[in-house]
């Protein structure tokens, strides 16, 4: 059987890759993609924790059937939120690009103190 830690490692790798991507890339679209990837990484860990329940081993918590579902439902909601986020975020990116075709996030610093 595939251990939980294997899934978590993949999740961690993808998350950190997305993080590094956000920091190093300057294109807003690519940064946005990295964010999506990070969300997916987190979703992966949610789902794996939903299937394997290491905290139950300690015997403190008895898991009811509906509680097993919590992780999966959370992922579902994350997807819903991500869909909405992407819709709005891409709309914003589009309007930014309309104003300034060669956009660079470093140039978007109108809010600096």
């Amino acid at each position: 059987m595939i251990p939980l830690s294997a899934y978590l490692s993949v999740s961690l790798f993808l998350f950190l890759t997305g993080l590094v991507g956000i920091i190093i890339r300057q294109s807003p679209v690519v940064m946005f993609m990295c964010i999506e990837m990070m969300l997916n990484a987190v979703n992966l860990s949610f789902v794996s924790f939903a299937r394997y329940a290491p905290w139950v081993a300690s015997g403190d918590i008895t898991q009811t059937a509906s509680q097993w579902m919590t992780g999966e439902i959370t992922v579902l909601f994350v997807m819903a939120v991500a869909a909405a986020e992407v819709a709005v975020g891409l709309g914003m990116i589009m309007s930014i690009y309309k104003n300034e075709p060669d956009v660079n996030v470093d140039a978007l610093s109108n809010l600096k103190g």
Partner: protein
Amino acid sequence: MISLENYNWLHSVIILMVLMPFLGALFQALYGKLTECLLGVKSGRWLLGSLAFTFVGTSFGLALLVVKDIFLKHPADVCCFRFTYFDWINLEVLRVPVEMFLDPLSITMVLLITGVGSLIHLYSTAYMSDDAEYSRFFTYLNMFIGFMLILVLSNNLLLLFVGWEGVGLCSYLLIGFWYKNLENAKAANKAFIVNRIGDLGLLLGIFSIAFLLHSTYGINSAGNVITPQILDPRWLSYDIIFGLLPSILTSYPDYATAIALLLFVGAMGKSAQFPLYVWLPDAMAGPTPVSALIHAATMVTSGIFLLNRMHMVFEFSPYASAIVSVVGAITAVWAALIAFGQTDIKKVLAYSTVSQLGYMFMACGVGAYWVGMFHVLTHAFFKALLFLGSGAVIYAMAHEQDMRRYGNLWRYLPVTGICMMIGTFAIAGIPLLSGFWSKEAILHAAFESSYPANLLGVDVATLVGWTGVFVAILTSAYMFRMHLLTFGIPFVNGAERWRLIPAHDHHHHHSESEGAVESEKYDFSDDTFNFYRRELCSHGCHHSDEHHALDKNHEPKEVPYSMQVVLVILAILSIFGGFFLHQHHFLEHFLSSSSAVSWVKPEILVDSYHDNHGVLESLLYISILAVTIGMSYALIVYSRGLPEKEGYNEEKWSRFRLFAKDGFMFDSSLSRIFGRGGYKLSEGFWYVFDNFLIDGIVNMFGKLSSICGEMTRFFQNGNIRFYIFMMSLAILVIIFYILKGGLN
């Protein structure tokens, strides 16, 4: 103490005596204008004036009644009464009732205040009759008498302080009575502020007495424990203080000196002694009856009264007493010398008042307290007479106060002239007049003082005595100078001096005359309701129309009879008062028994030896000689009119006289030292403390936050990726914290 059983009425009489003037003040304040409206100005003022006089006169009558029924029926030393009315302050440890203390000293002061006060009220009814604010004047005047009675009759120091401040207030209000003239308002402020310095001393003195009584009521000198129950909570009352202080002061002589000096500072302020005298000459800005009543006869003597009341403290401290007499002597000489340079008739009298007050303090300082009071009484007679006389002269001379414009007034004002001459003789010390007796008593007391002969290596009492003789010479000289310049031969170039003023030369004259307000000085642009202009007109009319300006056509007229009567009564008192009080040592016996408690005098006072027998034997001749010297000097110099070197052209004045005219630069030096010096000092403080310390701290916080801002600004650089970086760093830290179990 005699039993009060038969004198129940006394209780009410005393409070009535105090309340009468206050009732008068209340009436004047509430119904003054109404009366004037209802009855018309002339008869309304007649009613108001007679009411004001009646209220004070009633007090005087009650005082006379008390004297007749109590003090003349019993020996003075048993006549000490304490009347309690109600509690003013009632705490567990301190009870301050409103109490009156009737003893020879206070009844003497009461007689003086109400007697001279009612005479001056009578005089004022005529003098102020043209003033726009007649009832306001009498409100203040009545209120003053009331506060003065509280001051002298109160049985505790706190109530005395109430009276003390009350008379200060009335003095302020009356000096600034014609407040529309800025100079008068300034003089009033000056008097008030300088008096505050003295009041602070008095207050500190009261506090020290309270502290001393309170801190020592664990033990007394005999080693007995005085429990709080035994210490009466009325420990600010005289009877408690006088009962407890002797034993405490014997064991703590330094406290005696400290308390005595603090009380003396208070007395210095009210009684215009050397460093604090500067307000009194300026106080002459008030109406002349005020100068006579407050700044010559009564209020300024409250310092002497305080010394008399608390003389026990002074007797326990020879050092303080020596300082009192030395300060008195310095004041006497100083003010007498300044008087030579004054041309304003009221200023001369003001400085002579300061000088005479110095005399009184000399007497008190050498231990002869009753002599101080004696001089207070005689001085009240003749100084009130002189001031009222000068008021009459000013009244007759269209409010001109410069003596250089007077002269030959004998011809026009014979009654005033004679009365003023009697006053001058009295103050100069011509034998058998009242001033002679009191001055003689002061010199006598100084030369035979029972105080230590050598204090700090100087024979203070004898020195003070000789100073007194010197001041006697000066006094007769400047008083005769004043009299001769006013009434004596007038001629300069064959004309009376005021006839040299060209007609309609209003400007010069107005700026000098009392209470004159020149409307052109003021900007009325803001005066929408015509408030000031109307009042000024009614006020200005008083000088320019009814009393036409002093010019070469002026014919002085004798003053109204109500003023003359007062002058004559005071002149009679000035002639016979001294003799009457002095015969058979009447006043000495009367006042020396004034304290309710007798105590053993400190040993240091009992036997000390002064080698002054020779002086004492010939003192009479010495003082007559002194008066004669002064008088002859004045006669020689001024008998032929105004000398050239004292004339209008001040460039011809001698250097001494110019210096004296400026009050020996004392006033200006004071303002330079304390005014400009204080300014510089506060500027320095401002520079050091405000600029560096306070502003530094404030600015430091400002700079600190802006530095912090500069530092954190680096983090808010608008670079999204940098934000993400920092955010992940923070997330890292949070994860670390959670994993380390930080949340549990």
